[in-house]
């Protein structure tokens, strides 16, 4: 470590200050070392692949930032802890805040964890930039105006977009629908949003079956049999984990995919496992907010996709982009606050203020945080095709919609908002 004369003087000054005001020591010292960013990432269970993907995005962002000299000259350092049950994750969050004294925390995917972390972030007075953990009711009920937590996009964005596309392309071409969604809040929210939007568009589709397998289930034989009996014209599913290919495979084996229209709002999360063998063409497939083969992708996105494929032999998915954006947004906010504050390292309050409305380039184009701390992004969906160089399906053409169009605005209830649409 270099120790210049000036550095030494600063330290002595800090020492003198310490003697007088011991409480002020930590911030002074903290501003000279690296910036510490706490990361909460799932490493086991259903969420593990998603967590890993998010961490890759964070690492890519960190490498780039540090390669370009860090944030205001300070290196970015990651402190990685595991996201598990809500109880344990809150404890990890506390460890990051109290023991590692991180400048901000990025991460968390599970809704339940998010519900616990939101208040914890407020209590610990630590900035928390969520990757995916987002929840409507809990946070709104107990934390109407969060100061420290910055949430991801709403749960239902992908369902809203998929529903609009369904109405646009398939209206009048189906009479019966069935839903098979994971048995937890995300699944329920998406299915409810889909039904509400169908109604809004005047599509009187009869629901012939509603199935709720456990999240991460590996056997859908009974579900598929039930669906085969119900013979829906359209099946809606917001599966996003390993259950997606399993369901598709078993549905395909039972002949269910031949004539039925499929809406898979979030299946792009495991896009590489959706092999052509069992995933039909013409299904509506959502990639959340990052599509790896977007022809309109930015140079940054291309660089990341290349890096990801070289390093992991896999094509990246959306969680990487969530992870990337949280880091990029933090950097942008610090720099924005520093510009406003005369170039000094900004205070936490200044960073928070700068995060509100901050815009940064993500892997999927520009993204921003709204003033109410909710992420704005672009979503990608489209109809599946087998015409590509891979053994799995891709989409063509790629449709994109911004959250301005598919996410309810600040302070409005989801269904009030939907009912207020002009269609």
């Amino acid at each position, binding site marked *: 470590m270099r120790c210049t004369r000036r550095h030494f003087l600063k330290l002595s000054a800090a020492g003198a200050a310490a003697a007088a005001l011991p409480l002020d020591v930590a911030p002074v010292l903290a501003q000279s070392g690296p910036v510490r960013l706490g990361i909460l990432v799932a*490493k*086991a*269970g*259903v969420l*593990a*692949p998603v*967590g*890993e993907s998010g961490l890759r995005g964070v690492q890519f962002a960190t490498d780039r930032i540090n390669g370009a000299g860090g944030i205001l000259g300070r290196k970015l350092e990651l402190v990685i802890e595991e996201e598990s049950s809500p109880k344990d994750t809150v404890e990890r969050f506390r460890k990051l805040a109290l023991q590692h004294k991180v400048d901000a925390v990025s991460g968390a995917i599970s809704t339940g964890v998010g519900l616990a972390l939101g208040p914890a972030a407020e209590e610990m007075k630590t900035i928390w930039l969520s990757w995916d953990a987002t929840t409507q009711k809990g946070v709104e009920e107990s934390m109407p105006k969060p100061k420290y937590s910055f949430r991801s996009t709403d749960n239902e964005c992908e369902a809203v977009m998929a529903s609009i596309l369904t109405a646009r392309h398939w209206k009048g071409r189906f009479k019966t629908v069935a839903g098979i969604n994971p048995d937890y809040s995300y699944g329920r929210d998406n299915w409810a949003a889909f039904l509400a939007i169908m109604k809004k568009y005047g599509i009187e589709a009869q629901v012939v079956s*509603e*199935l*709720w397998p*456990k999240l*991460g289930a*590996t*056997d859908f*034989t*009974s*579900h598929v*049999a*039930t669906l*085969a*009996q119900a013979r829906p014209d359209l099946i809606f599913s917001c599966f996003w*984990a*390993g259950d997606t*290919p*399993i369901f598709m*495979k*078993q549905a*395909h*084996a*039972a*002949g269910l995919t031949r004539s039925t229209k499929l809406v898979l709002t979030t299946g792009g999360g*495991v896009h590489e*496992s959706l*092999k052509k*063998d*069992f995933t039909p063409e013409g299904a509506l497939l959502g990639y959340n907010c990052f599509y790896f083969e977007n022809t309109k992708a930015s140079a940054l996105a291309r660089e990341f996709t290349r890096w990801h494929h070289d390093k992991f032999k*896999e094509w990246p998915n959306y969680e990487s982009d969530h992870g990337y954006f949280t880091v990029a947004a933090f950097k942008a906010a610090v720099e924005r606050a520093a510009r406003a504050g005369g170039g000094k390292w900004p205070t936490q309050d200044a960073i928070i203020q700068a995060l509100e409305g901050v815009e940064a380039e993500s892997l999927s184009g520009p993204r921003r945080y709204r003033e109410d701390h909710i992420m704005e992004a672009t979503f990608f969906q489209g109809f599946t095709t087998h015409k590509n160089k891979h*053994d799995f399906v891709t989409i063509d053409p790629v449709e994109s919609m911004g959250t301005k169009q598919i996410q309810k605005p600040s302070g409005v209830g989801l269904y009030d908002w939907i009912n207020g649409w002009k269609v």
Partner: protein
Amino acid sequence: MLFLVAAGLQLVFGVQKILNLACGSFYALGAYAGVSAVRAALAAGLPAPLFFPVLLGAGLALAVIGPAIERLLRPIYDRDESFQLLLTFALVLMFEDVIRFVWGTAPHQLGNVYLTYGQVRVGALTVPTYNLVVIACGAAIAAGMGWFLARTRFGRIVRATAENREMAEAMGVDMARVYSRVFTLGVALGTVGGALVIPATAAVNEMGIDLIVEAFAVVVIGGLGSMRGAFAGALIVGVVKAVAIATWPEVEMLAIYVIVIAVLVLRPAGLFARATA
């Protein structure tokens, strides 16, 4: 498939009086090994229709871990069952991470081999032939186990040990060997079960932990230590799940636990337990 795991559980419990929580882990291991083996075999140029014996082989080969694990359990045979239960719980924790370490967190699957054998129509439903092959295989293993236990010399020794350990020991049966082999057989039932199911699904990290509870349900409903019970229990659980999903999906999970509790309360020895004192 549940039947195979449950049968393994039953066998080990019947003979060694150990309730093996790790049976689900063997199932998961079998699934992962099955994927790897078939992938390697296909990459080596094996014609696709031959994948089935490869799966079986992978499942069976994996059973070599049986004797090692049995060795680990050996010091606590004479202790309270609670300790045995806990030791197998320790195995569950360890295997979960072993799998994660070796195969990573992403789901592993075998693309199209599922439909290599084509599909058949049963009534209004289209069923992959592979499912029938697996069902036939399960039935064959059930019948084989029955034959093995009833007719072979080793089978008789196993049954004698299950009935009365001291007596069998007094008659000169080498307990260490019997236990080792029985346990390995139990492991093999689990790993083969996992390997066979994999073409229809994908191997995921948490499949072991999830399966344990269901395997338990099967065993409790069927009666501890009873082969016939394992078969019947697996059928009951399967049917209850299917009916619940078709009629009232909300109660799928609940229904199984309610049945388990009802069986334990009304017929604690299970529906098919032998009348032993």
